[in-house]
């Protein structure tokens, strides 16, 4: 997700302690979601029904909490670009609330488990990596996982996200919820249905860039090891 820049940053002790705490809480939260998810698949097989109920509360809490990371990047305690962090967090929160939470039909379709697997595995790895990175104790295997798993998880995740968005469209087309219609004094309209379509279309230019960026990072970070 948020990728580190080159120069090691000098963090004050309170900032470092805070980040370790934040990442530990996230790691525990997402590990719990992972557990519930695996538990569901073990007992129910590949059935989608009931999966949302298993993970709903921790998912809403811990994924929403990611907005803190926008603040972290804005204040500079993490070295990520604010714009990129914002885009990444926004896409998650967008999927989570107006799509999955609001439109109950989206919890019963194939896209949901796809995105849940991608999100959960990615986040457990990512937050563990951040914790150990702050303590300068990242084992090579974890680094490899963090910069390799994305290769299949990214495409799986965005497939799930796009399918879920598509499933939510009929609801917003019919209810016109979150939309502003004419006539009004300010001659302003906002059509949430079309907004979802716009977000889906945005994946076309954005995904290759993010995916490509991860590959570059992988080459930079894992590639160096090979030269030893």
């Amino acid at each position, binding site marked *: 997700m948020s990728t580190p820049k080159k120069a090691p940053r000098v963090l004050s002790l309170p900032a470092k302690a805070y980040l370790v705490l934040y990442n530990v809480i996230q790691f525990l939260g997402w590990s719990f979601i992972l557990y519930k998810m695996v538990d569901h698949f073990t007992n129910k097989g590949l059935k989608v029904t009931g999966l949302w109920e298993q993970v709903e509360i921790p998912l809403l809490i811990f994924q929403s909490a990611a907005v803190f990371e926008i603040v972290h990047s804005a204040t500079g305690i993490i070295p990520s670009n604010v714009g990129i962090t914002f885009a990444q967090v926004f896409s998650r929160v967008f999927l989570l609330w107006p799509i999955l939470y609001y439109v109950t039909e989206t919890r019963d379709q194939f896209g949901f488990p796809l995105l849940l697997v991608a999100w959960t595995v990615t986040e457990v790895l990512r937050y563990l990596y951040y914790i150990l990175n702050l303590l300068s104790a990242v084992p090579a295997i974890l680094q490899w996982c963090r910069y390799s798993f994305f290769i299949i998880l990214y495409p799986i995740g965005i497939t799930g996200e796009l399918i879920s968005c598509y499933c939510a469209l009929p609801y917003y087309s019919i209810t016109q919820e979150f939309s502003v219609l*004419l*006539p*009004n*004094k*300010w*001659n*302003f*309209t906002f059509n949430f249905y079309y907004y979802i379509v716009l977000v889906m279309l945005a994946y076309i230019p954005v995904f290759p860039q993010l995916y490509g960026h991860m590959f570059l990072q992988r080459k930079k970070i894992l590639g160096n090891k090979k030269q030893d």
Partner: protein
Amino acid sequence: MEIGILSTSGGKQLATLTVDPNSTLKELKTQIHRLKSHLYPDRQEFRQEPRGKGLDESKTVAALGLKDKSKLYLKDLGPQIAWKTVFLTEYAGPLFVYAWIYTRPWLFYGEDAASQPMSQVSHIAAICWVFHYSKRILETLFVHRFSHATMPVRNLFRNCAYYWVFAAYVAYHVNHPLYTAPCQIQSYIALGFWTVCELGNFSIHWLLRNLRPPGSKERRIPRPTKDPLTLLFNLVSCPNYTYEVGGWVAFTAMTQCIPAGLFAFAGFYQMVIWAIGKHRSYKKDFKDYPRGRKAIIPFVL
């Protein structure tokens, strides 16, 4: 003497040119074009360092201090397109898109829309919009003197998307059957203000044209002339942008339409960036540049 030409990406040797000290970089570009047919002169930029500043092509080899076996870096600016072509495409689009949506096509509004009444403001807004872009096209053809002949083709698609999509966005709302006009007094006052801004913007363009002798790339400090609308130069470096923003704010007030306001804001944001760059450039190039001038907003920015 021989000059080695190296690529800015990778430092690879592209060519070795035989030149005399009085050859201009422009002549060198012609030589390179003969060697590499895809690198027409407008696509070439010489630099003394791979990431250095682009060199003025009218300078001679000797003036740059180059000797035998010296090296110059060449950057490929990518496929280029003439500024004029860019502007005409960028401005014709919004003009026709708005005019088309003004007719309330069924594609946007459904079958019954065209026959429904339209408020006076919507008619006036369409005239203003068409006038504004016609003026821009005419200025591009007859008024502006461009310091650089071309720009990268990539920009064309990005810029056109911006202009065309925003034109459709604003037009859709102002011409909508359910559009609500603000009170007439507001619209008329805003229209008056808009007119002044259009005239002001043109006055500045005219002044800038006459500031630069034809065929030259010379830069001089712009100062107010007899035209009172140019007095804004006493307060800002880029009054053309000030008037442009003023015009769009007026259009927004006239139509009381948030989409128009968003368009005005987007333009404002971009013009602030350009104005600050120009302002800094003026201050750097002219030791006697008038202090007290701001970039785009009098007394403020």
